[in-house]
Each structure stands twice: as structure tokens, then as C-alpha cells.
């Protein structure tokens, strides 16, 4: 293989600076954003932004599957409490028709609280499972599309319905998958 010869420099070329003297002065004159002195990453728009290790760590934590699952659990708890409050005010549980002392405000408030807690726990568990499963499926597939929500909904619905037998599990899976797909569609449509 013949030796590589650099092409001749155009004699009409106006040289602004010979060598790299300005380059080596630059670090004293202005703030240089280079991660390493001699490696220049091509700029796209604006200054080169290289994330610091702290920022990368924080981002990795926030986008990780367990964190998302916990966040979803907490949000589900809040949402479940709201739904439980609403439902208990619409449909009070009047199971004992004989005693009048059950009509005190304290009793009704206690029933409201129990209903709220029950709904909140259910929603929290649902949210955590759904979010965790969706995150795992998305990580395993390596794609971000609508099918992740559907598959996660199917698994979650199946787990919920499996308590009532296999058929209930299948129906629950199908129903929850459809519900999840519809919700995702509306959320992404804006």
C-alpha cells in the first residue's frame, strides 16, 4: 500500500492562524465546554451539552422500572382515595337497616374512610403492577409503541381476574387490555 500523502495546500488559501495557538489560548479566554481537550464533538444547535455523572445518575434512577412503579403506586393511592370518597358519598353502605344509631355523622365518616382506604389500596396495587409490568415489557422489547400498554393491561387484568378462575382471568385480561389501549390512545392524541 503506497504511503498516504496529504493533498497540497491551496496557495491562495488565507491562513488565519497557523497551528493551534488560538485553540490552546481558548481555555484561558472563555469558558470551554469540552469534556476533553482534544476531542471535539460536532455541535448540533447551541453549545455542546454533555451531562454530568450526577445528572446521568439521577436520570437513570427516575427512569428506572422500580421508581416508576412506586410513583404509580402513590398516584394510584391518591386517585383511589378520591374515587372512594366520591363513591361512598353516592352509594352509602346501608347494610344494617334496623339500628338508628348508625346514622350518626361519625359512623358515616368511618364508613367513608373505610371505603376510601379500600379503593385506595386497590388502585395503588393496580397502578404499581401495571406500571411495573409495562416498564419491564418495554425494556425487554426495546420499542416504545402502543403495544406495551396493551400487553401490560393484559397481564394485570389476568392477574386480577385469576382469583375468580381461569375464564374470569381471560375476560379480565382482555377487558383491561382494551381499556388500557383506549386510555393510551386518548392520552397520546391530545
Amino acid at each position, binding site marked *: 500500500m503506497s504511503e498516504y500523502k496529504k493533498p497540497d495546500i491551496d496557495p491562495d488559501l488565507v491562513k488565519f492562524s497557523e497551528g493551534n495557538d488560538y485553540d490552546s489560548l481558548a481555555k484561558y479566554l472563555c469558558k470551554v465546554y469540552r469534556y476533553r481537550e482534544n476531542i471535539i464533538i460536532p455541535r448540533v444547535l447551541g453549545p455542546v451539552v454533555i451531562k454530568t455523572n450526577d445528572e446521568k445518575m439521577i436520570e437513570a434512577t427516575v427512569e428506572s422500572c422500580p421508581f416508576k412503579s412506586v410513583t404509580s403506586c402513590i398516584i394510584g393511592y391518591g386517585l383511589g382515595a378520591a374515587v372512594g370518597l366520591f363513591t361512598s358519598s353516592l352509594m352509602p353502605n346501608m347494610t344494617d337497616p334496623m339500628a338508628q344509631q348508625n346514622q350518626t355523622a361519625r359512623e358515616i365518616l368511618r364508613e367513608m374512610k373505610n371505603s376510601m382506604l379500600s379503593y385506595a389500596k386497590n388502585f395503588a396495587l393496580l397502578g404499581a403492577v401495571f406500571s411495573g409490568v409495562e416498564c419491564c415489557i418495554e*425494556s425487554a422489547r*426495546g*420499542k*416504545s*409503541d402502543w403495544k406495551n400498554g396493551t400487553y401490560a393491561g393484559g397481564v394485570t387484568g389476568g392477574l386480577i381476574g385469576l382469583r375468580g378462575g381461569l375464564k374470569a382471568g381471560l375476560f379480565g385480561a382482555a377487558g383491561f387490555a382494551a381499556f388500557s389501549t383506549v386510555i393510551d390512545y386518548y392520552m397520546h392524541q391530545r
Partner: protein
Amino acid sequence: MAVPQLDPAKLQLVQELEIEMMSDMYNRLVSACHQKCIPVKYHEAELGKGESVCLDRCVAKYLDVHERIGKKLSNMSQGEAEDLTKINLQEKK
């Protein structure tokens, strides 16, 4: 692979070639992984979790393949060089 080129001129040349090779590899890597991992229709501006995971895997595989093929190629060219020297020695005899 011995490195006897210690002239400043040749060293400069080698460094420039290295930089050019690195930037070429970077461009190809970006283009290939973008084509593989990010679908054409954009729903949002941020990278989703699946896409980030796919990009991590793509870069790791690309660099792994690059390293292995580089080693294989250098072994092959080394084997060729040895064969050539053997043939030359035989011809001289």
C-alpha cells in the same frame, strides 16, 4: 504490531488518521442506530424508555462488532504478511 514510527511528522499523520477514523465511526454508529431503534413516526420529542434501551444495546453491539472484526482483520493481514515473508525467503533460496 510494533510501533516504530516515532517521527513527529508520522505521529501527527497517525493522529490525524485516528481522529478521522473515530469521527467516521461515530457518524456511522449514529446513523445505523438511529435507523434501527427509532421508528419513523415521532409521537413525542423525548426518547422513550424502549428507545433508550435499544440505543444502549445498539451502541454496545456496534462497538463489540467493530473490535472483533478489527482483531480478525489484523490477524488475517498478519498471517498474510508472514506468508509473504516465507515466500520471499523461499524464493531467495
